[in-house]
């Protein structure tokens, strides 16, 4: 038997924090390729501490639903899951290239394949592009458009900005959009001045966050000038300084994220059959 465990931050205050985690886990569950699909949280239940004991499967694939490598993926999650043998060198990562490592948890008789975060997988690039398609309602969006990938910045973790740059570079190299830039909340280049960074008349802004919350629904929309007061909402697109801003909200809410979880597990050795292709197709049809 094989299980997928999606581990995420969760929140004591915001019930929407766990919504994307549940939704993507449900999508994977419906494919039927895992005997069990579970979720676990730092701030909700089951905790990282107690999720493994709820499973019957001997092979467990743990995928962190986090944007970047860092404190949570390298310290908190392995410690709380009791992956005593974990050493960050096992990932041999340059900051965005962690794949997986196979370990034993000390409290259960199971093999745990501990994967790198969803946010740094190559398939995440496709999710950002899909997010741009969703928010514009155009499957071909690109020509005449700029794309801004927005991150928190390096305040606590330099890998956070590395992940943003990694995907922005990949999308730029694909040549699909006229311009692609990475912008940040707390460092240059800043998201506040989004129109200064683009020559295109239309710019899609995709924040690389897992869930919608304070940053994506209050902070960034106000900083970008989409609205003076987040409570009154904003139009999509909204014209700011002569540029149409298509603000996408947290990329982690895009249904295609479920594909990244599957690919992370597949890369670590999980048997997923044709689920990757199914989910890619199904989330497109189901996209808003």
């Amino acid at each position, binding site marked *: 038997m094989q299980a997928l465990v999606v581990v995420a931050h969760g929140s*004591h205050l*915001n019930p929407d924090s766990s919504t994307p985690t549940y939704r993507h886990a449900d999508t994977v569950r419906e494919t039927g390729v895992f005997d069990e699909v579970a979720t676990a949280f730092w*701030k909700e*239940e089951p*905790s990282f501490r*107690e999720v493994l004991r*709820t499973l019957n499967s001997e092979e467990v694939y743990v995928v962190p639903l986090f944007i970047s490598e860092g404190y949570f993926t390298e310290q908190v999650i392995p*410690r709380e899951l009791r992956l005593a043998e974990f050493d960050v060198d096992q990932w041999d990562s340059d900051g965005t290239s962690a794949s997986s490592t196979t370990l034993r948890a000390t*409290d259960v008789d199971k093999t745990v394949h501990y994967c790198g975060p969803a946010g740094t997988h190559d398939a995440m690039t496709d999710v950002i592009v899909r997010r741009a398609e969703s928010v514009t309602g155009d499957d071909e969006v690109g020509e005449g458009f700029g794309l801004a990938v927005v991150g928190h910045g390096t305040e606590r973790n330099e890998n956070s900005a590395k992940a943003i740059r990694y995907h922005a570079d990949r999308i730029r190299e694909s040549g699909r959009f006229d311009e692609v830039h990475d912008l940040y909340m707390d460092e240059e280049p800043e998201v506040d001045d989004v129109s200064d960074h683009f020559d295109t008349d239309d710019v899609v802004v995709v924040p690389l966050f897992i869930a919608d919350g304070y940053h994506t629904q209050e902070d960034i929309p106000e900083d970008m000038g989409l609205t003076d007061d987040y409570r009154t909402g904003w139009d999509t697109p909204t014209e700011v300084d002569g540029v149409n801003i298509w603000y996408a909200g947290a990329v982690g809410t895009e249904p295609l994220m479920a594909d990244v979880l599957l690919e992370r597990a597949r890369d670590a050795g999980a048997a997923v059959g044709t689920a990757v292709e199914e989910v890619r197709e199904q989330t497109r049809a189901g996209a808003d």
Partner: protein
Amino acid sequence: MTAPAVARLSSAVREEPVACDGLHAEYDDNYQFSIPDADIEESGLSEDEFETLAADHEPYVTNWAYWNEDRADADDAFLRWLEAADETTVPERYESLRAGMSRSWGELRIEVRLDDGARRYEIRHSDDVGEDGLEPHDEPLDARSLVTHDDDGRYRPLKTAPSLPHGWVFADQTGRECVETVEYIYPATVANWYLERQGELDIDHWEPTIGRQSGIYGVVQTWNRGDSHEHVNWVAEACCDDSQCVKRREWQYDEETDLDVPGGDGEFPCREPCSLVIAAARKWTRLEGEQEQAYEFTLTPSEKEQVEEIIDAVADGRADEIREADTSDPANRYRARYLRAKRFDEDGNLSGTATESSE
């Protein structure tokens, strides 16, 4: 016609001996069948004789068939506990199951009953026993969103807080669906309850739990007062009392030092301080870093008691229940507003006494 369970039993017995809840059956060239409780012990049986005898004691056979299904050990133990399988004989139990047998699990009431010979499970809020018109659900996954908010629409950050919403029922579930539903409502409680029954529950006490914290929770590590663990008593009294969480707190200060406050009467254990306790303890760590100082306030005796009643009302979650016009309740809103109007200065200081001393 041979009942399916009887046919399954005779074929299973040819593979290996069967023993379940007082039923014993074996095969060695011919069949042996015994139920000591019913004074039955027959050997040298042909297949037909065996199946006829088994059919005469069908509850024992269907009972074996049910408990022989492939199921995780913890789930099996939980479902058996629901019907007190280790404490009753099969005929007694089947009699009770026809009427329905119930157990409480946190705020849940779980009933198992025999329906056309098959076990069916029903889950509802224990306050909703006897209620009609509850919203019916089938899918275990529905439970996850049902319990996200309390009856007043407030987010429940702690799944085991005694604020489970009312008004729903999972009326007709299989055993597997029942356990799955319980797990969505109270995650990991079955697994930890089972480990405890096996004598294998891994309890992480306060000391090692705060010892492994890092990042913004690393400050909690420093919050020890020499040999004293009084502050941890206050944490447990504040967060882990039965009025706040339906788990039974099994963690103590450390391996040698028990806390002085009750762990509660919950059916399932709490094996370490949870993330809410750690997050609250971080706040208290910071607050407890302050030095005490003496303040002087002028209050009437009733006003002093009123301040105490207001703290009690908030601490017991009673503030919302106090009726608007019930001015006999010291924590009544008009009473509190009157006290504020009378005793606070324009800066919000009680009795005009500044929080920081002026020198």
